[in-house]
């Protein structure tokens, strides 16, 4: 960019965003970010501002945008309550490694520390949940700090960065504005090269494995190494399991796909974790929801952990070989060292586990008006690449388990924080990327009501998102926990709900309710064929529980297929 002379700080912020390739900002105005809005006004062609209806919506939309686009998502809000309303989404992005830059307005510098109107210490309270944050108090810092913010957010293990910018910094005049992208920070090493030794050790283990298993996590999608994953799996004849956020790294129909690991994952993936001899885990962090009882996790296996964040290696599970690297570089180095092999009986074992799950759980779920059935029908009726944006609760597990991810599809959901209300705004963000033919947002009746106000943004901007409400009139996942661990004492689980179709209708969004199994398919078809936003409320079975499940405190291979197991 050419240098600019005598511009305001606010103008500098806008120009910096444009330089970083930002085309969409999700935001909400207030007294302390109005100068930036005024600058946006003159840059309407280059930057689109999307007015969400609550700041939590802005940050989730930025997350959805970032996840769908593999680019940094941006949200911008005012100081005080605007800033505090962001916190949930920032924590969400931190746990799920989502690159976002959050810009908060702040009171003028001379008022800092005086409890001025709408002053909050956002840098202080966001410190534990950001990858980096910084308060800009003079306009001259804007160029270098914003360049740094974008670099930190997207490089290495991505994450949220927050910039708090005082109002006087937004109005000061910068004599000479010069923008250089940041490519290096002395104290920050986002992309470590994998050590030769570790690569060789990993390859040796894999070549000698009899029962190898790969688990792919979010890191595979973040580093874009889906092709390498597939190639390795083929070469080694190695089954591939996935974490919740790793889904869609490999298409479900791949004959070596073992399913999802973890609490409500697939039977095969969990059983095989405790039966394999070499476990190759890529870009995942062994969260407690994935590993069940840590002392009984894959003790029989030599674990290879490929991970970009050194502090994750050995944090929970000590691997035999730790490869500190981004997933793509590591796999590219390992692949040439791999000998072609075949593991027929091991893969047969996988199919037996899968068959067992189908017979005891899946087939039944698909024969009734249950969450899994709805998701499966959506999956069958979709046309072209689809982003499945799933909320939290039983609806999320059903989405993960029953959507048939094909090449080009993607899951976007809140994994680490499990944030109810994530899906609707995240779907808005995903819709803006235009990376998918369809954006399907799958929610429960509880989560929908947490960010229901964002229907306003869908209405105003005419976003063609498909909204699927799996309504069981329950906080279903809570009811399931009360079933399993609290003698079915359903306390506050059942909700009195409004007429959702009427509400959505009032927003001018096409809405329909399904109450029978027969009506489901045609309704889903209507929704997928409709040009524009569409809302489908499905009255699913009220008392359904998600199975299989790893009971609390149990090992992954102690998974229960049915309540009577």
């Amino acid at each position, binding site marked *: 960019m050419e240098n600019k002379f005598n511009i305001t700080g606010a103008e500098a912020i806008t120009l910096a965003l444009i330089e970083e390739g930002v085309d969409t900002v999700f935001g909400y105005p207030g007294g302390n970010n109005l100068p930036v809005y005024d600058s946006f006004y003159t840059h309407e062609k280059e930057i689109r501002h999307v007015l969400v209806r609550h700041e939590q919506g802005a940050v989730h939309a930025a997350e959805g945008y970032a996840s769908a686009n593999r680019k940094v998502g941006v949200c911008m809000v005012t100081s005080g309550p605007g800033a505090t309303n962001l916190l949930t989404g920032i924590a969400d992005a931190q746990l799920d490694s989502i690159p976002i830059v959050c810009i908060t307005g702040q009171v003028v510098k001379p008022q800092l520390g005086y409890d001025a109107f709408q002053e909050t210490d956002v*840098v*202080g309270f966001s*410190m*534990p949940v950001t*990858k*980096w944050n910084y*308060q800009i108090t003079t306009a001259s810092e804007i160029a270098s700090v914003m360049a740094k913010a974008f670099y*930190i957010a997207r490089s290495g293990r991505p994450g949220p960065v927050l910039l708090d910018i005082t109002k006087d910094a937004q109005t000061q005049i910068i004599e000479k504005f010069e923008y250089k992208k940041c490519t290096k*920070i*002395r*104290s*920050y*090493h986002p992309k*470590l*090269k*994998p*050590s030769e*030794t*570790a690569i060789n*050790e990993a390859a040796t*283990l894999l070549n000698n494995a009899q029962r190898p298993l790969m688990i792919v996590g979010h890191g595979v999608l973040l580093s874009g190494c889906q092709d390498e994953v597939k190639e390795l799996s083929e070469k080694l004849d190695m089954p591939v399991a996935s974490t919740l956020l790793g889904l869609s790294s490999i298409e479900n129909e791949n004959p070596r796909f073992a399913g999802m690991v973890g609490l409500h994952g697939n039977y095969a993936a969990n059983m095989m974790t405790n039966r394999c001899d070499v476990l190759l885990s890529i870009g995942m962090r062994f969260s407690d929801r994935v590993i069940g009882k840590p002392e009984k996790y894959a003790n029989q296996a*030599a*674990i290879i952990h490929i991970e970009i*964040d*050194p*502090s994750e*290696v*050995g*944090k929970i599970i*000590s*691997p*035999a*070989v*730790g490869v*500190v*690297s981004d997933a793509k570089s590591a796999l590219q180095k390992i692949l040439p060292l791999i000998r072609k092999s075949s593991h027929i009986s091991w893969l047969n074992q996988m199919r037996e586990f899968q068959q067992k799950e189908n017979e005891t759980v899946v087939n039944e779920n698909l024969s009734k008006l249950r969450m899994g059935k709805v998701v499966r029908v959506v999956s069958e009726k979709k046309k072209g690449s689809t982003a499945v944006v799933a909320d939290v609760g039983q609806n999320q597990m059903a989405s993960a388990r029953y959507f048939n991810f094909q090449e080009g599809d993607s899951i976007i959901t809140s994994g680490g924080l499990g944030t109810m209300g994530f899906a609707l705004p995240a779907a808005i963000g995903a819709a803006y990327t235009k990376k998918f033919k369809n954006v399907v947002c799958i929610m429960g009746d509880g989560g929908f009501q947490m960010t229901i106000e964002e229907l306003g943004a869908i209405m105003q901007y005419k976003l063609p998102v498909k909204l699927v409400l799996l309504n069981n009139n329950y906080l279903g996942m809570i009811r399931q926990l009360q079933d399993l661990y609290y003698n079915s004492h359903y306390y506050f689980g059942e909700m009195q709900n409004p007429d959702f179709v009427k509400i959505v209708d009032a927003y001018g969004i096409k809405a329909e309710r399904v109450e029978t199994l027969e009506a489901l398919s045609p309704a889903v078809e209507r929704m997928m064929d409709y040009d524009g936003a569409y809302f489908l409320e499905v009255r699913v079975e009220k008392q359904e529980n998600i199975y299989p499940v790893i009971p609390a405190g149990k090992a992954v291979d102690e998974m229960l297929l049915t309540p009577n197991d």
Partner: protein
Amino acid sequence: MKEKDENIKQYTVVVFTEDKVGLLNRITIVFTRRHLNIDSLTTSESEIKGIFRYTIVTKTTPEMMKKAADQIEKLTEVLRAFYYEAQDVVSQELALYKISTANILTPMEGLIRDFNLRILDIEKEFIIVEKTGSRKEVLKLFEQLKPYGILQFACTGQVAVTKPMKELENYLQELNKAAEMSNKIRSWKLKN
């Protein structure tokens, strides 16, 4: 997870950082989240201009120490975080004692000699002395002065330098050579 007492050791954590606002907070959050008590913490500019040095003393298990150090090193503005067991550091504390002059004057001469004290101020009602030494010595003197009435006591906590030679200077050179950063990651032993 209850940590077994016999595994708990005293560690001196030495953290080198850029000169940036808020870093103390970021570093202590790592300790707080893991319920690690900080026994003492000092900070000052290091031997390299513009690079700050934090010396933090804590007690914990070797596993927890490693994880906490990894988390500290992960902070964007931290250059390196090293940790050492007691035998690998030379440390001193500086303590100031303000004592009432009512009873002290006669035994003071002996104490000054025995403890190598420096007199900083003598007034009609009180005397202020300085002691530099190990924690043990500082506390021993405290006990000896107690009967005479300690009006005020203040102590720096441990400042330490480490015995092993390879440290930040080398590290910075490595950086410049863009040498294999992954060397810093311990090579993981084959399990089987």
